């Protein structure tokens, strides 16, 4: 039997409410971390997964306190230890890798110095040895030319590189246990795949145990041997990762897996109703009861205990898990999306370029933008009425910039945006008339920021109604009620403030506000990325339903390729503000032709341990688009030579209507797909 290095026993952590009630964040958690294994802790926001990970290094967040239980490491309880003793363990025995390395690194100290500090604290090496160790560590996390990296400041590195430095710092003390709190969440898909691969390598190479906390089952599937699923402060399922992902025997995990959109499957995943109970609201019964498809009377009043099933080596907290064992193979059923495409083109974007360059005085006087290498260039997309077109790409690809220009928030440098063949929308806000503004509405990524915290839901939805239609009194109220009904929220939400709503409910209010203007086009800027998976599916389904009802056109921006696959009819792939490929989703996803599309799709993580990401290109981040030639030349693995560097590639159109911008002949591009 392998050695257990961390033992969590009956751990409960909570806080005291204003009324003096004890409110539990973690309820009676018991688990063991064995030497050399990687454990994934997965759960939606508020499930207590981060609190658990922090407790494993003896840290309890300010305001919370340990109610009972212990975290045993090397047979001493971390939660009762003095700070001085904890200092000896943290970094040396247990190290932590934070979510946002960019914020965790000190901005005014060089990388080498920061790693040196960690080494001074956590090892007994002499100065010369330390220097060597630094480049060794940087080498281990596969940073190019460690000597030069050590002399750089954190802001000179890309997000992926910063995360690697954080890994190197954590490894400085050769810890036995590595805690990772959402280490890849803020990274681009390709970078994320590379970092995960590195973590896998390090786990094998050093034999360090890892606890990997994430909301992303895709990432968890790639790294972990064992998975712990948390729901409202409890472990609901714990077992070998393959079994859990393939045959989840807890209804929550089952529902969660069903609600994740998959690359291989077009159409919208089914959503789980409701949302996770807030801490302190649970009194009796199973915490998942409200949302469970398998519940019965027993679940309502009795809380199930964690039950260990020997034959599966799995612990499960459910009365009815037996009924799931038989039919729990995740047969995903999707709601096929219906599109009533009209041949009428609603929005023509031609030759659009957008620049963020600052105007000098002469340009200001002449009211022009002179920038020969603008952020976004040569965008040509014609959007049909009633379709959902998705703009995809990594951060910095200009997808949000294009949205802003369509909305009028940003001036275009050149090119024409035309609505309905006649109305010119190239101007910015001030020059557009109210009706031009009404036809295009925006939905933002984060509903916390897009809803005024000091307005009630009623006031929020009333704004466009008052502005565009001048509604008042009873009629206004009636319209608001109708809109709320359309987004499946009850009338009683009208008097609530955004802070009283859950994330999904807030996004529904934002959707209702957008539809209040009766727009023709809705711009969706990463509308689901701030939401939990189970809620994401519900919002996507709602958007699709509304589209079918109103015949609205969506321009959908997302970095999540699986989400895009689920909802879009057509995809435009962008790199560095230039289009790479435009085509019907099914063709782009089934036969990715452009080298960049291939890279992007290859890096997507699926919640299936058998599907490994394909790492085609390096994860370098380019600051600026190249002056001439193909935008992807810097990272392309199939670069032909000088032609790619000097000439802008031509558009090639496939039989299925897929436009690809590449110098490589179509035949060759398509040949590879078959292999």
């Amino acid at each position: 039997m392998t050695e257990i290095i961390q033992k969590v026993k009956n751990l409960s952590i909570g806080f005291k409410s204003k009324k003096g009630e004890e409110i539990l964040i973690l309820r009676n958690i018991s688990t063991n971390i064995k030497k050399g294994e990687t454990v994934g802790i997965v759960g939606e926001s508020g499930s207590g997964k981060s609190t658990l990970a922090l407790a494993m290094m003896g840290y309890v967040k300010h305001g919370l306190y340990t109610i009972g239980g212990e975290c045993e490491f090397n047979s001493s309880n971390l939660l009762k230890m003095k700070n001085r003793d904890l200092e000896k363990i943290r970094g040396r025995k247990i190290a932590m890798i934070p979510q946002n390395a960019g914020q965790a690194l000190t901005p005014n100290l060089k990388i080498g110095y920061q790693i040196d500090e960690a080494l001074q604290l956590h090892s007994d090496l002499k100065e010369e040895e330390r220097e060597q160790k630094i480049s060794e560590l940087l080498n281990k996390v596969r940073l190019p030319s460690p000597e030069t990296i050590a002399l750089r400041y954190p802001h000179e590195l890309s997000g992926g590189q910063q995360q690697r430095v954080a890994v190197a710092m954590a490894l400085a003390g050769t810890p036995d246990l590595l805690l990772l709190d959402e280490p890849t969440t803020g990274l681009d898909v390709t970078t994320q795949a590379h970092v995960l691969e590195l973590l896998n390598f390090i786990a094998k190479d050093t034999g360090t145990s890892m606890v990997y906390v994430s909301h992303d089952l895709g990432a968890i599937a790639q790294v972990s041997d064992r998975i712990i699923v948390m729901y409202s402060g409890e472990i609901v399922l714990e077992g070998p990762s393959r079994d859990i992902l393939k045959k989840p025997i807890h209804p929550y995990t089952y529902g969660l897996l069903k609600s994740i959109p998959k690359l291989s499957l077009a159409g919208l995943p089914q959503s789980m109703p409701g949302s996770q109970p807030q801490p302190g609201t649970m009194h009796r019964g199973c915490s998942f009861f409200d949302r469970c498809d398998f519940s019965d009377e027993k679940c309502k009043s009795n809380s199930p205990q964690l039950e260990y099933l020997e034959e599966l080596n799995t612990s499960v907290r459910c009365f009815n898990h037996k009924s799931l064992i038989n039919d729990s193979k995740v047969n995903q059923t999707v709601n096929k999306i219906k599109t009533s495409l009209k041949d009428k083109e609603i929005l023509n974007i031609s030759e659009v370029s957008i620049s963020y360059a600052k105007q000098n005085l002469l340009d200001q006087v002449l009211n022009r933008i002179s920038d020969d290498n603008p952020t976004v260039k040569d965008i040509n997309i014609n959007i049909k009425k009633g379709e959902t077109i998705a703009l995809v790409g990594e951060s910095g690809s200009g997808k949000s910039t294009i949205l802003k220009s369509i909305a009028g928030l940003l001036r275009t440098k050149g090119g024409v945006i035309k609505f309905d063949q006649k109305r010119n929308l190239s101007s910015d806000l001030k020059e557009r008339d109210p009706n031009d503004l009404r036809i295009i509405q925006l939905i933002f990524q984060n509903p916390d920021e897009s809803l005024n915290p000091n307005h009630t839901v009623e006031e929020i939805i009333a704004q466009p109604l008052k502005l565009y239609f001048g509604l008042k009194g009873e009629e206004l109220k009636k319209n608001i009620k109708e809109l709320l009904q359309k987004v499946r929220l009850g009338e009683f939400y009208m008097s609530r403030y955004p802070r009283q709503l859950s994330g999904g409910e807030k996004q529904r209010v934002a959707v209702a506000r957008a539809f209040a203007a009766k727009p023709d086009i809705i711009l969706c800027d990463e509308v689901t990325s701030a939401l939990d998976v189970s809620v994401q599916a519900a919002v996507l389904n709602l958007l699709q339903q509304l589209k079918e009802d109103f015949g609205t056109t969506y321009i959908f921006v997302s970095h999540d390729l699986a989400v895009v696959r689920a909802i879009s009819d057509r995809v435009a792939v962008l790199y560095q503000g230039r289009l790479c490929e435009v085509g019907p989703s099914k063709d782009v996803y089934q036969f990715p032709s452009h080298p960049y599309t291939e890279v992007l799709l290859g890096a997507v993580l699926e919640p299936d341990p058998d599907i490994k990401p394909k790492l085609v290109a390096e994860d370098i981040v380019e600051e600026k688009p190249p002056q001439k030639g193909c935008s992807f030349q810097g990272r392309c693995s199939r670069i032909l030579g000088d032609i790619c560097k000097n000439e802008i590639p031509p558009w090639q159109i496939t039989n299925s209507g897929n436009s690809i911008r590449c110098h490589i002949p179509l035949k060759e591009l398509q040949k590879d797909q078959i292999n």
Partner: protein
Amino acid sequence: MKLDNIYQEEKKSNFAKVSEIIITMASRPSGFIGLSILIFHVILAFISPYIAPYDFKAINPTLMLQAPSAEYWFGTDDLGRDVFTRTILGGRTALTITFFGSLIALLWGGLLGIFCGLVGGKTDDIVMRIVDAFLSIPWILAMLLIVSLLGTSTEVLIPALGFFYGKGIVRVARAATHDVIAKDFIISARARGHSNISIIWHEIIPNVRDAILVEGAMRWSWMLLGFSSLSFLGFGVSPPTPDWGLMISNARGLMSFAYWSVIAPIVGLSSLIIGINLTADAFAKALGIDRSTKAPV
């Protein structure tokens, strides 16, 4: 659904909101003390004309510099006037002038700050440089100039004080506006095509109101000190109106043998300033603004 239970908090009336804030303020020891002092002073200012035992301007040469006694609680001053009477009346003018002064400061400073924060660009640059230029002039010199040109009437003092104390509020309001301006709900309102006035009124003011109110409350106490300094220098209210600054100024030469004539107005003035300060701090905490992390401008 169970979730609904904890979200029962419905929209509250303004009265309920205000009383909740006051209760939160009073639940802290410092807030309780501050509020009590402030309320005590305000009540005193209202009722003092009716409870004053003597006429504040009655000069009595036979009673010069009497020590405190049962008859004259705080003694008498160098003109034989009752110090108790003058002390309880002395806060009235200061409190009234500075209250309306801070109101004016809040109004023009807050609105200009919000406007500059919202429009940005050249307008913002120009206005802010002018504000900076005014900030660099010592206010007391400028006040002395205004007062000597236009006199010391209330009609002059209130707007002049309001103007000079509003400059700082411009910066605070602008900074607070910058915090919310980048949020998506403002961008969303802009994209919908709301006018600047509508954005200021509906989107920004509800979000910066608290910060500006707290700043205004702090300015009130500073303005009180400033106003008393003016009186002390002889540029505030004119004698024989009872005023703390004036009383301190008159009696300061007699401090060595008639301490009572100067102690009472000093206690009055400083307790009121402390009271307003503590109240403003408690107000900030009750609203969830932590002043300790923000440097005053």
